[in-house]
């Protein structure tokens, strides 16, 4: 298989990339890691007239924490950069847990965090973690930069809120309100398969009290499911105990919208979600207890 013909540009700056996109009237696609786009080109699901390859733009591969505690992930940070980052391991447990579950190790050397979020695959791991962490995408267009909150960024399956002449230049995760804990669990039949169900949870804690709770689900609906309200209602202002964990698991499982397919029945997938929420929260509670 091979892609349809396209014109190819490899600009050296974001401004140049934006100018090319602006001239292309929506007939161009940005190429970063290419681990979703190139298969789509080969399968002819996508046949853009022009490819704007951003891999030669210097200075987009940063992964840094600002003094205010916010995390900034540049558009050319690969999945494996997140996987092997000490900063992520120490400060972002939800991202750290998801990193080694994204696709397979070979895809992780090429694919990018920001590109994966932009791809807006309902099965996508990073979009789920970004929703749970209340992240946002910074987009650069002809009129400068704007920030788009995750809840407004993913419009539907494979559809994001970027204009045709904008490049997503970074992802931002806001600072923790207290101590950040969380995890990511995914059930897949084998490495690299689509998820049967995935759960991302991120909590900020003040001592034993949950100050902020975020949760998102992948693989159990037509798009990434934002369960932030469901988990917040069950946990914010409370401590993690058997009762609150049960309530959170019930609420989040209720937000899932799975379909019966060859990966399992809808009821089974909902049960997996409930089990994963319970498992993640129980582990956090146990770790807290040991630390106390």
């Amino acid at each position: 298989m091979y892609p349809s013909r396209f014109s190819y540009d490899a600009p050296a700056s974001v401004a140049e990339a934006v100018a090319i996109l602006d001239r292309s009237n929506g007939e161009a696609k940005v190429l970063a890691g290419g681990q979703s786009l190139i298969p789509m080109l080969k399968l002819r699901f996508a046949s853009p007239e022009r490819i704007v390859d951003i891999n030669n733009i210097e200075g987009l591969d940063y992964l840094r924490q600002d003094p205010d505690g916010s995390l900034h992930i540049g558009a050319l940070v690969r999945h494996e950069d997140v996987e092997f980052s000490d900063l992520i391991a120490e400060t972002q447990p939800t991202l750290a847990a998801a990193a080694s579950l994204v696709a397979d190790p070979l895809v992780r050397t090429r694919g990018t965090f920001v590109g994966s979020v932009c791809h807006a695959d309902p099965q996508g791991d990073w979009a789920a973690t970004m929703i749970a962490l209340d992240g946002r995408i910074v987009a650069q267009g002809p009129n400068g930069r704007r920030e788009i909150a995750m809840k407004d960024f993913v419009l539907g399956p494979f559809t994001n809120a970027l204009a045709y002449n904008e490049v997503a230049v970074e992802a931002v995760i806001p600072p923790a309100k207290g101590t950040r804990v969380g995890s990511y669990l995914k059930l897949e039949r084998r490495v690299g398969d689509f998820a049967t169900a995935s759960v991302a949870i991120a909590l900020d804690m003040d001592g034993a009290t949950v100050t902020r709770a975020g949760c998102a689900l992948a693989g159990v609906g037509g798009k990434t499911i934002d369960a932030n309200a469901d988990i917040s209602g069950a946990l914010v202002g409370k401590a993690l105990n058997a009762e609150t964990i049960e309530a959170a698991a019930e609420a989040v499982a209720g937000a899932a919208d799975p379909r019966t397919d060859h990966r399992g029945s809808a009821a089974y997938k909902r049960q997996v979600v409930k089990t994963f929420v319970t498992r993640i929260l129980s582990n956090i509670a146990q770790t807290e207890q040991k630390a106390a």
Partner: protein
Amino acid sequence: MTSLYEVVPDAPAEGVATRRVTITVNGEKRTLDIEPRLLLAHLIRQGLQLTGTHVGCDTTGCGACTVLLNGRPAKSCTVLAVQADGREVTTVEGLASAQQLDPIQEGFKEEHGLQCGFCTPGMMLAAKALIERNPDPTEDDVRWALSGNICRCTGYQNIVKAVLWAAEKMREES
């Protein structure tokens, strides 16, 4: 050189734009005029006649086409050849010298790490990248690093042994 595919004409149609790229393949600098849609796997196999790189699933699933791109393993069926411009590509042909097998290749020989051999080049390059990053991998580390490579003979047990053998040999030599 022009863009070559198995199922389209050897030369791009008249008026089709090509792009000049310089790619270092197994240490040798190559300057080529290629169509932007040419995939790295096709450039390597048809264009450069380095047929050790295999194309299995062609859908980013199997890892048979794995090469090292600037030292990191990548599925060459899912990289445009133009993206390798100015970069280094190592294929399985770049592992051994005329005199000596790479320790990874020796490992596959010693531990019978191949049956049909189709997945082997990809396995070896993924393993090489692992050992460079982690010279003393555990069995779990090896299984994890090779989880993007599929062996349909299901000879995983010996593949893992081969990689562990190679890692040990490389530690002894260093």
